């Protein structure tokens, strides 16, 4: 007598589990424009690479003879898989199955997923589509409880251990908002996913009558910085997840993998010599200017809708993955707001954690100033960003494209370290920009002149000669001024040096001010 009957029963239960919820619920889920949890996993990972764990867990009713009469699969599905041939762990809840109360192993499965990612040191992808608890839980439990934020310590450990991507694919509410936000990279699907601490019926009690979109739509949450990016479809979210992970090591104990590169290191783009307008009041397309230096099609922007005066991206140089910061003059002239500072802090920490060398393309006129900027907490946020830059252990290279003014300009690097730095001939720097400051500084001088306008012009012309970056270079206060067309070459040289300086291991930073 073999164990075949048990194996057959396991296979039958697996077959039922693969059907997920009742057919009407699956149909309604599809009609809402959403994929099922199993379609999501298949859409994300390499074909046939899913190794499910807890595949027959669920809720079973037996008759008096011990025969199964009803089997409701678990509402949490997870396992190991591969993305681009590299191991990952992936899991998420099944919105087509009833409430968690009827799933005895569901909570433990989602906790196991988190522990597995951390203890195996593997990238984790959370597929989130579910609401948190409601007050009916009290009736079911027959008691209430003190909130203990289950497993938050594990989420936090994972955040310091291996890449975590979280996708909000439906309604993300209750504790699930923590799982979406406590990640290195999060996305929501436009018009399909919603994220809020408390939903429309609850906030209606505050007198706020709003739709799900108005309360927690994808674009709203990305602009608020609660998630990193918005996509138009789940497939796009899976594609971007694969791409994000391709730049990163499996965990802090490994180094980011080099990719093949057929883009010549010596490639020069002629238009770069005139990319920066000579008129200092004019802006330029920072994304176009930045992309020109990196391996073809390797520029992967992250967090476009938040802190827009700074563009953050992963990219490659001669195949080596790097983290890139680029000033965007179209937003506040590239000036840093509180949001920009927070974005910079998180991004520099991310680069530091996963041993990505940092490339900083700088055009910063300073912190954005004024009453609103003071009220927004720009100073505290700015200090936190500067702390992140100073605490980052990995190699960094700065290219000053144009402006570098004030404290925010000074935040382009840790000045206690060797400055691996270049400037373009458009470089323009100092403690504060000259425009508008001349009349104040030379008021008496100008007023005493026979022709004040001519005197102002004379002062301006003189100061404009002094602000030439060549004069700074004479004093070796900028290491080297380069032809913008040579930028790719010097950055690739940097990436090859930096590759050997990268060190594995966890990040050790102090607290932020």
């Amino acid at each position, binding site marked *: 007598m073999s164990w075949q009957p048990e194996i057959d029963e396991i296979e039958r239960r697996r077959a039922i589990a693969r059907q997920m919820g009742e057919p009407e619920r699956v149909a309604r889920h599809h009609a809402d424009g959403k994929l099922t949890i199993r379609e999501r996993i298949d859409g994300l990972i390499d074909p046939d690479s899913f190794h499910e764990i807890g595949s027959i867990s669920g809720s079973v009713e037996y008759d008096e003879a011990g025969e199964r009469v009803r089997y409701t699969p678990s509402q949490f599905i997870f396992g190991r898989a591969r993305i681009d041939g590299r191991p990952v762990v992936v899991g998420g809840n099944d919105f087509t199955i009833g409430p968690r109360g009827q799933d005895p192993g569901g909570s433990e499965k989602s906790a196991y997923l988190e522990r597995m990612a951390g203890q195996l040191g593997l990238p984790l992808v959370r597929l989130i589509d579910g609401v948190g608890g409601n007050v009916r839980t009290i009736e079911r439990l027959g008691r209430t409880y003190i909130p203990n934020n289950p497993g938050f310590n594990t989420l936090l450990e994972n955040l310091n251990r291996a890449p975590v991507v979280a996708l909000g694919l439906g309604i993300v509410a209750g504790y699930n908002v923590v799982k979406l936000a406590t990640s290195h990279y999060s996305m929501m699907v436009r018009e399909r996913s919603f994220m809020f601490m408390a939903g429309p019926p609850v906030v209606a009690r505050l007198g706020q009558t709003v739709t799900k979109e108005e309360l927690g739509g994808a674009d709203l949450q990305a*602009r608020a910085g609660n998630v990193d990016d918005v996509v138009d479809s789940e497939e796009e979210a899976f594609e971007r997840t694969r791409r994000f992970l391709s730049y990163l090591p499996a965990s802090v104990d490994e180094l980011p993998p080099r990719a093949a590169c057929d883009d010549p290191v010596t490639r020069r783009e002629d238009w770069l010599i005139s990319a920066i307008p000579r008129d*200092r*009041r*004019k*802006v330029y397309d920072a994304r176009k200017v930045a992309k020109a230096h990196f391996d073809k099609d390797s520029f992967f922007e992250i967090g476009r809708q938040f802190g*827009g*005066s700074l563009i953050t991206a992963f990219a490659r140089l001669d195949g080596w993955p790097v983290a890139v910061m680029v000033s965007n*003059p*179209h*937003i*506040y*002239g*590239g*000036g840093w707001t509180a949001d920009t500072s927070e974005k910079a802090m998180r991004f520099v920490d991310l680069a530091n954690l996963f041993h990505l060398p940092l490339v900083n393309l700088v055009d910063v*006129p*300073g912190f*954005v100033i004024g009453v*609103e900027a003071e009220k927004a907490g720009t100073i505290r946020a700015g200090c936190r960003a500067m702390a992140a830059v100073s605490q980052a252990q990995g190699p960094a290279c700065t290219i000053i494209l144009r402006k570098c003014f004030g404290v925010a300009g000074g935040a382009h690097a840790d000045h206690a370290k060797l400055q691996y730095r270049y400037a373009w001939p458009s470089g323009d720097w100092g403690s504060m*920009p000259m*425009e*508008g400051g001349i009349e104040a500084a030379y008021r008496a001088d100008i007023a005493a002149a026979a022709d004040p306008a001519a005197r102002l012009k004379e002062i301006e012309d003189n100061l404009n000669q002094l602000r030439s970056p060549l004069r700074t270079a004479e004093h070796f206060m900028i290491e080297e001024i380069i032809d913008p067309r040579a930028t790719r070459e010097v950055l690739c040289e940097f990436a090859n040096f930096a590759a050997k300086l990268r060190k594995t291991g966890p990040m050790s930073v102090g607290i932020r001010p």
Partner: protein
Amino acid sequence: MAQQVVRSELAANVWKVEVAVGDKVEVDDTLMIFESMKMEIPVAAPCAGVVAAIDVEEGQSVAEGQIVAILER
């Protein structure tokens, strides 16, 4: 005809308005120019269409996220 709202991506002063209601615009055409941090910041048309409304005047300040124009596609 679908309406496309144009919002300001930053707090700024409106320096110049370059189009009028009824003008036809192409994608990326400059609708107006803001001034912020001593820079001229163009506001580009997010799509081709006809200018249905201009909600700002030269010299006024705008807040981040404020609607500054409406296009009809």
